[in-house]
């Protein structure tokens, strides 16, 4: 309230207007009620205002990604080869999937440290189902681990919301506990090999060149059609709408990204002449599908809206009649279920699960990816796409440092510094946002 008063002192005239509409009102053209299409210049200005108020959008992190890629390319010319970029995508897919889950809990202002080992456990459940004398059908070995991981999240979320325990402690307990459960199932130094081709293909196989192009084209057309229809309808109904140019610009950017992805992945990246390796990895589409699903939940459903509301002001959400305990529990459930998806891909990539799963590193990289992408640790701010962009940054650092043959130790140091930088930016923008 104190800060409100400070603001008013600056703008007494602006607030005088509504009570003096007859003698003091400005021309109505400035009124929001008329809505209408915003001019491109105004849009740019409001974007700058948004960046300053903490909603930075994707531009800074995309620029950061380009800088990182350029730096590694200068140090090692292999960085931007098709082979390495596809490797990077496959490595990064785990971080992206985990980060997609983590965003659900970051948006409500909580944290989940356990999701790395929950993912490992998901991989183990899949492995157990696919091996042995009577293996389960592959689709069951995909569905059941996701549900089981979701149940773990529901349990942890219930402890947090119903008893009121801090999420940091509950998920730290999960971090230790589920790691222990994993080790008990695997035995000392044990592994579960997975030799189910369909299952492993989700993480390792490539689509044929033609199918890859068709799928990318279909996705771009779908995106363009939906965006065009949505913005067009807003322009027609006189609501606040972006200019046509911006709609086209967005479509062009997405189309270019899709074409670049397809071109890179469809290049023959085999290092021997007789065999060819090309095509978009399945896992790229797994990540894209999950990205669409999470975006859908966060932006188009009441559940997502309430998650943002809880992250912004839990008490306001509660007073608005939102069942905050249920929504928060569902956030943890979705986070862990996404961990299950990541665990399945992880197990597929390694064609099995071993005691080497480092859930601690996984979860920290996932949180780093989400925060670097632009999701706030303070709650209320974040998008699913942040997970993917941030995951690319984290994977680029891990991959580039590997190419430079730097030790794992220095990789940890650099990733730690990048996380610290991202959190600092987050904290500074948060402070500025709450000061206005």
């Amino acid at each position, binding site marked *: *309230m*104190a800060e*409100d*008063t400070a*603001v*008013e*002192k*600056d*703008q*007494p005239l*602006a*607030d*005088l*207007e*509504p*009570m003096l*509409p007859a003698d003091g*009102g400005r021309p*109505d053209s*400035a*009124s*929001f*009620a008329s*809505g209408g299409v915003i001019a491109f210049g105004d849009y740019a200005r*409001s974007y700058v*205002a948004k960046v300053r*108020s903490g*909603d930075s959008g994707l531009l800074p992190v995309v620029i950061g990604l380009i800088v990182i890629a350029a730096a590694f390319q200068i140090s090692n010319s292999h960085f931007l080869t098709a082979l390495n970029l596809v490797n990077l995508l496959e490595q990064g897919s785990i971080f992206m999937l985990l980060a997609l889950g983590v965003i659900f809990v970051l948006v409500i202002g909580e944290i989940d440290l356990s999701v790395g080992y929950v993912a490992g456990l998901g991989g183990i459940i899949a492995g157990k189902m696919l091996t042995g004398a009577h293996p389960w059908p592959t689709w069951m070995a995909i569905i059941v681990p996701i549900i089981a991981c979701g149940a773990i999240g529901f349990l942890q979320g219930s402890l947090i919301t119903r008893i009121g325990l801090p999420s940091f402690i509950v998920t730290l307990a999960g971090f230790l506990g589920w790691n222990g459960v994993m080790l008990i199932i695997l035995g000392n130094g044990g592994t579960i090999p997975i030799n189910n081709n369909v299952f492993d293909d989700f993480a390792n196989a490539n689509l044929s060149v033609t199918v890859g192009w068709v799928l990318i084209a279909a996705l771009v057309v779908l995106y363009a059609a939906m965006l065009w229809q949505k913005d067009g*309808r*807003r322009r027609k*109904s006189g*609501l*606040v709408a972006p200019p046509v140019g911006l709609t086209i610009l967005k479509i062009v950017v997405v189309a270019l990204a899709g074409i670049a992805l397809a071109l890179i992945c469809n290049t023959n990246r085999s290092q021997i002449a007789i065999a060819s390796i090309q095509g978009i990895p399945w896992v790229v589409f797994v990540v894209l599908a999950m990205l669409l699903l999470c975006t859908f939940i966060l*932006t*188009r*459903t*009441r559940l997502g*809206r309430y998650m*943002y*509301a809880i*992250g*912004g*002001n839990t*008490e*306001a*959400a*509660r*007073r*608005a*009649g*939102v069942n905050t305990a249920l929504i928060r529990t569902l956030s943890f459930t979705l986070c862990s279920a996404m961990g299950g998806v990541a665990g399945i891909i992880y197990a597929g990539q390694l064609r099995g699960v071993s005691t080497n799963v480092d859930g601690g590193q996984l979860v920290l990289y996932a949180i780093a990816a989400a925060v670097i992408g632009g999701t706030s640790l303070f709650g*209320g*701010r974040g998008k699913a796409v942040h997970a993917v962009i941030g995951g690319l940054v984290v994977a680029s650092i891990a991959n580039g440092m590997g190419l430079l043959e730097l030790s794992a130790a220095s990789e940890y140091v650099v990733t730690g510094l990048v996380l610290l930088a991202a959190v600092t930016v987050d904290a500074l923008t948060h402070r500025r*946002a*709450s000061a*206005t």
Partner: protein
Amino acid sequence: MDGIESEQVVAADAQASGGGGAGSRTPLLELRKMSKQFGPVQALSEIDLKVYPGEVTAVVGDNGAGKSVTLKTISGIHPPDGGEILWQGKPVHIRTPKDASALGIETVYQDLALCGNLDVVQNMFLGRERTRNHLLDENSMESAAAATLSSLSVTTLRSVRQSVASLSGGQRQAVAVAKAVMWNSKLVIMDEPTAALGVAQTAMVLELTRRLASRGLGVIFVSHNFNDVFEVADQIAVLYLGRLVASLPAKGLDRQVVVDYVTSGASSRNGSQLAHADGA
């Protein structure tokens, strides 16, 4: 009409001398012997209060007198431990904020209860989003929000799609009031709506409050500020240490009488002085 206690005698006196007042209409909301405890603390004891449509009922009292608890009880945040709530003459149970809004009771909280990260439209529809095929219907919500803001002559917002964090205090108050009235609500509760505002914004909010009453809504207006109270209120209810000690028509009321009730729970000034104040 049972449960009349000493304070209503005062009210009757005041009505007789001041004229006007509630008469025999059905109150929109009536509290009968409503009580609320928090652990060992008796926050409210046997509150009797009547709120009529088309009138602004001010609730005043010192810090800790029970103003906020009274509001939160009516709006379903703290369900009462004892007593009765009558809505348009019929007993009702208000256990959650949803129950309250289902009846048509909306509350503008002192802290406004807005989510800074959500935009104006999202805040106005929070908890009651319009959906189409189970998905959020943003366009319809945006049109309705803009229409409501216009009807309240709130025109300083740059866009209904800007985040509430970027608004000034007066604009936030306007959004909170618009949020409360857009649901065809019958009773709007305003908790210290002017506490954080400057002079110009206060005048705007008071005018908004009168506009609500003139639309036929009941308004409960909680405030510390006697200037504001006397400017908007039709009826003034005074709480003292969790009890309702007076309920008086504001017209012609001596300000000092209210001060006495607020500070000591009683007033030595009698009806003749009221009449005197009325005549002056």
